[in-house]
């Protein structure tokens, strides 16, 4: 069974360690916040200028001056700090943010990522993604393994304009958890429950490395 978006988010949440500062991209990454395990202290950074992003406000308590990088109304938490955009990308560039989780259209087997532009289509812009992928020590990509036409999005080389080069460390898709090896190649770490290695092979156009028995992911949410 391929994972739902919520299940992808849940699986990614287990990569978060106590004491991490984490930047979550738009889409599936945003959902990760819902699954952070109890007892794990994490601070969410929003690149528009906030450390310590809290949940959405209750209706009637929305503050137009308090939004996240997805322009959604949010809240602060005790211990939150506000800063300007230059300082925000300063802390990203100086690698104070421990983990960046973002979506992708394509990832290549050497860790290149494309997630901002499709030639011929209206381009909305890269936002903060190019800064995040160029600077983060630890990048996890949440993405679909194949596109709507059934074509693999894990490729030998990206076909779309790049967002960053050799930066992706780990990928969680509806089918698998994969590590991008420093020398290149997608190393299969875990399978989605009931998904075979063969299915993952068929869905991966780039070099897939399968060593030994591949365990199934532990997913507890029903999605």
């Amino acid at each position, binding site marked *: 069974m391929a994972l739902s978006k919520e299940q992808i988010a849940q699986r990614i949440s287990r990569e978060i360690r106590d004491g991490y500062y984490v930047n979550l991209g738009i889409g599936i990454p945003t959902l990760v916040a819902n699954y952070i395990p109890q007892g794990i202290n994490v601070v969410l950074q929003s690149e528009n200028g906030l450390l310590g992003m809290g949940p959405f406000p209750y209706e009637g308590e929305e503050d137009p001056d308090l939004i996240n990088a997805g322009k959604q109304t949010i809240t602060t938490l005790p211990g939150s700090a506000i800063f300007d955009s230059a300082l925000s990308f300063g802390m990203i560039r100086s690698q104070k943010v421990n983990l960046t989780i973002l979506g992708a259209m394509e990832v290549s087997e050497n860790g290149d990522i494309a997630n901002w532009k499709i030639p011929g289509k209206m381009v909305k*812009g890269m936002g903060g993604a190019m800064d995040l992928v160029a600077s983060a020590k630890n990048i996890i990509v949440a993405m679909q393994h194949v596109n709507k036409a059934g074509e693999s999005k894990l490729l030998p080389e990206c076909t779309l304009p790049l967002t960053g080069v050799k930066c992706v460390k780990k990928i969680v898709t509806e089918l698998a958890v994969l590590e991008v090896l420093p020398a290149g190649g997608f190393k299969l770490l875990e399978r989605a429950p009931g998904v075979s290695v063969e299915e993952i092979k068929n869905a991966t156009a780039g070099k897939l490395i399968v060593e030994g028995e591949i365990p199934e992911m532990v997913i507890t949410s029903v999605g």
Partner: protein
Amino acid sequence: MINKVVTDADEAIRDIEDGMTLMLGGFGLCGIPENCIKALIRKGTKDLTCISNNAGVDDFGIGLMLQQKQVRKMISSYVGENAEFERQLLSGELEVELIPQGTLATRCMAAGYGMPAIFTPAGVGTEVAEGKEVRNFNGKDYLMEMAFDADFAIVKAWKGDTAGNLIYRSTARNFNPVMAMAGKVTIAEVEELVAVGELDPDSIHTPGIFVHRVFQGNNYEKRIEQRTVTERRL
């Protein structure tokens, strides 16, 4: 103290001319200089180059200036949902330069800090790097990006005093402080204009030396772009 107060937005923007380059603070519709944007529309200034993280929406923010075809070029990191913007872009009426958000912020900062250029890894190996100098420091490649050169910076603050000292509120701060430092002339509109001495010197975000004109704006709409809420549980 030096008094920086002007009457209103129209006086503040009086000498912004066709063809100039403007920085406009804000992130999405949060913390944008609503009063000055409306005054620019009243004035009808044309052929503007606008440096702003976003381009507003169809009927608010910089989107209103796009409706009036006042903008020749946008320099932004994300232009979002804006039908008129898309129409002008596809028809060639509007030029757009998309740059990474951190690069946008840091090119403002460079100008404010009197640094002609900065190095950032953002965009290395991508089309953003085309035509730019790449330089390796300690085994990592960086692009050399140039400080912005803007005729005017237009920012929105929460409180300001008559000497031009500014305090922003919450995430409406965003690009405003770095742009405030970066304009040849900086205009600040504030929700509340106070006398000198009423702001705590330790809490001032933008020292008045960077601000040339300040005025108290009015009728702030502060539109919310993505209203997201948590269900109340009884």
